[in-house]
């Protein structure tokens, strides 16, 4: 019993160290990401940055220093805002849909800063913010609505002083909302804030991110959460909050809202040794996994699949339901992701042989050949093996080759040839032939690829499409519907190709 307690204690210490390191990495990288996004905004849409009060908010944020800045950078809204903004720029939406998306996301930053200055522990601050659509002020991990009269623009003047946040209509100076700090009777599990409502206060969704208009009167997640609290009154604070994350994720999974990360980052500051000691070691470890999983995804500036997070949530639920807990550590995903996190594009800098076990990666080739057309990150696709975790062939390379002219194709082929990877060269030639409509040639190159990796689904499925185009519908079906992965299929294909030629 004592030995088990000691073991738990040492695991807790280890977890605390892991969390601390994750937080430090996260904070450092989010600062860099934020600066990069701001540069993009200045370069691409400086007018909108003025118009939406982004610049005014940025001036407030840029004034934060030292520990206050570190705390502000942990604002969960900031992380999801950066992800969304990067997505707008990466997809060109900021140019195509300035009104629909760009203005709203820039204005959103001006509201997020209100939350950030509170987290930073400033004694006082004041600025204007623009609210578009749902007129909500980010508070903790939800939005406090200050008005629902209009979907148009509302400019508010906010003041943070002596632990009290005051929001006023900047046009007529009407008081819209006041939020005061009270630590003696916390209403929320994650902080000591208490809302004191002075003027129209319509709804407060604790467990949601930005509200959309039709959602604001339906705090479903809160109800669900309350029922969980009733069912598990003995759970420690952090475990309750994890359940809330899980419910929220499951509820919002269909909408692809990346709020789980926001929640866990909110929780991170309240993680303490005392809380961890209350948790079972397995649950604590999974909590760290989820946190690390999301953090890793964020650091890579790409959202990890919510399916995976949902699966982790289900695992948490199972543990909570059975008091026995799990005895096997589940650190594989976390360790893998942290590894990726610390070295997201291994070997990318040099022209190395990156045609690897997991990816069919032409990024370094494309860079060396200086090809234009598709962005560099499109020059890679997952190598799919039957029975493996990755099951979907997305044809990124095939599609990327479509963007190249003949001269660039030749240049790229020469670069690949120079690398000495025959398999990579064969697949490149197979893609080019397929796109050009020479299906016999493509099938020939794919047959060579299959000699190097007979289990590679990318090769088999493209070969199936070649068969379809060549009029061998039955062979297409053998591969696709009956999972035939054998030499006989290749033999039949070649005898028919030879017969027709």
């Amino acid at each position, binding site marked *: 019993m004592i030995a088990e307690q000691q073991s738990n204690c040492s695991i807790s210490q280890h977890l605390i160290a892991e969390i601390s390191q994750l937080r430090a990495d996260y904070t450092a990288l989010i600062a860099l990401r934020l600066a990069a996004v701001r540069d993009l905004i200045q370069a691409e849409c400086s007018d909108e940055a003025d118009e939406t009060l982004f610049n005014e908010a940025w001036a407030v944020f840029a004034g934060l220093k030292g520990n206050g800045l570190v705390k502000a950078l942990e604002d969960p809204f900031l992380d999801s805002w950066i992800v*969304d903004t990067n*997505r*707008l720029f990466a*997809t*060109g*939406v900021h140019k*195509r*849909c300035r*009104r*629909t*998306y760009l*203005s*709203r*996301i820039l204005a959103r930053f001006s509201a997020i800063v209100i939350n950030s200055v509170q987290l930073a522990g400033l004694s006082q601050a004041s600025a204007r913010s623009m609210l*578009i*659509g*749902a007129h909500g002020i980010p508070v903790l991990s939800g939005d406090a609505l200050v008005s629902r*009269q*209009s*979907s*148009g*623009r509302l400019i508010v003047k906010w003041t943070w002083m002596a632990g009290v946040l005051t929001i006023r209509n900047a046009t007529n100076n009407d008081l819209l909302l006041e939020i005061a700090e009270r630590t003696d009777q916390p209403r929320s599990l994650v902080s000591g804030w208490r809302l004191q409502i002075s003027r129209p206060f319509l709804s407060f969704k604790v467990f949601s991110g930005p509200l*959309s*208009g*039709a*959602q604001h009167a339906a705090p479903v997640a809160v109800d669900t959460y309350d029922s969980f609290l009733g069912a598990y009154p003995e759970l420690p604070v952090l475990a309750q909050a994890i359940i809330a994350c899980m419910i929220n994720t499951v509820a919002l999974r*269909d*909408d*692809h*809202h*990346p709020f789980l990360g926001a929640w866990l980052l909110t929780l991170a500051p309240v993680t303490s040794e005392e809380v961890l000691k209350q948790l079972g070691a397995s649950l604590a470890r999974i909590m760290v996994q989820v946190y690390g999983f999301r953090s890793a995804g964020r650091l890579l500036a790409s959202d990890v699949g919510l399916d995976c997070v949902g699966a982790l949530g289900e695992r948490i639920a199972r543990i909570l339901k059975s008091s026995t807990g799990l005895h096997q550590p589940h650190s594989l995903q976390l360790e893998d992701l942290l590894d990726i996190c610390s070295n997201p594009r291994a070997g990318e800098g040099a022209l190395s042989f990156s045609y690897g076990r997991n990816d069919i990666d032409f990024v370094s080739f494309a860079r060396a050949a200086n090809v234009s057309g598709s962005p560099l990150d499109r020059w890679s696709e997952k190598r799919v093996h*039957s029975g493996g975790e990755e*099951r*979907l*062939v*997305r*044809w990124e390379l*095939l*599609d990327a080759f*479509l963007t190249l002219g003949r001269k660039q194709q030749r240049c790229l082929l020469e670069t690949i040839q120079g690398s000495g990877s025959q398999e990579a060269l064969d697949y490149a030639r197979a893609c080019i032939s*397929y*796109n050009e*409509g020479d299906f016999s040639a493509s099938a020939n190159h794919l047959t060579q690829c299959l000699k190097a990796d007979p289990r590679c689904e990318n090769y088999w*499925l*493209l070969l199936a*499409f070649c068969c*379809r*185009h060549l*009029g061998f*519908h039955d062979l297409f*079906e053998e591969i*696709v*519907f*009956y*999972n035939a992965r054998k030499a006989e299929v290749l033999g039949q294909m070649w005898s028919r190709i030879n017969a027709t030629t």
Partner: protein
Amino acid sequence: MQLREPLQTILNLKGNSFLLPIYAAVIAEVRRSMDDWVPIHNLNEFRDFLHSLGLTVLEDCIFQPLVPNERIGGVQCSPTTRARGISMKSAPNPVANTTVHVIVSKRRQWAEAALYEAWYPLSISGDRLLLRPKVDALRLGHAFGYPECCAEAFMNLNEWSTHSHLSEVFKRSEVLNWQANCFAMRTPLTPICHIPCRYDCPKTVALTTAVLESVCHFDPDYAFQIQRYLLGTFLVLNEAVGFKLRNARYSGPGFVGFSSIDDLYGTSSDINKHVKQIKDLILGAQAVALEEGMIVTIANGMRQWYEPSIHAEWFEDPFIATFT
């Protein structure tokens, strides 16, 4: 829906009224070929009837609808097709709505060319999706006889998670010509099955004119109904959510009032929580406007709004278009 022959028999055999104008166009060789989905129990009768009209029918494979919440790897990559592909050689268990994917053409050569390209993202062995290489979409457009300019535009704009293809076309259109209105594609009242490169694309306008002439040959009333439906005002978010605003009129600053609306996609689009939310909002409204890129509605004097979400499964970029 009561039509004249042979359209009525085709409707009866295939069990729905979609794509009927296209059959008329294929018979007249205005379109090289088309594809459709026929209930498996009617396949023989359907094939025999089309043969009697001088048409070739080639079978691709069986489409068996996925069970709701069935776990298929990569299913999120397929916005519209949610089915398991089964070889015609297999005898499937009888499941409601099981259909056979067929290619129809006046000439066997054209039918074969279309069959090679016409793969949809179906679930295959191993419970995973098999996506189609992008270049095959271009080839399929050619095989079906779509205008080259529109097939090219499709290649560039049909990224449904980051673009609203329909909205991008709207932005590049100077005139909204009803003959290039493709919003009725999921209704019985469409003469075209492709998204034009512009809503005034001359080749699409010419194609529509020719298709309607071939419909008129069999059923003039039907051709007139199609034309009447394509004229008017539409609110569209993307290829999954769109509405025809009936008797639309401008009522107040920026607002369009209407007597009733038609849900252009009905239950054919996958109804997730997000889509249901916007549909409920619009279906209960009497007027609509776009403000700050958001959809604002008035329902019984109450003002409500919908913010397009960057996290929506289909990229949302709403617009209101009036075709004349």
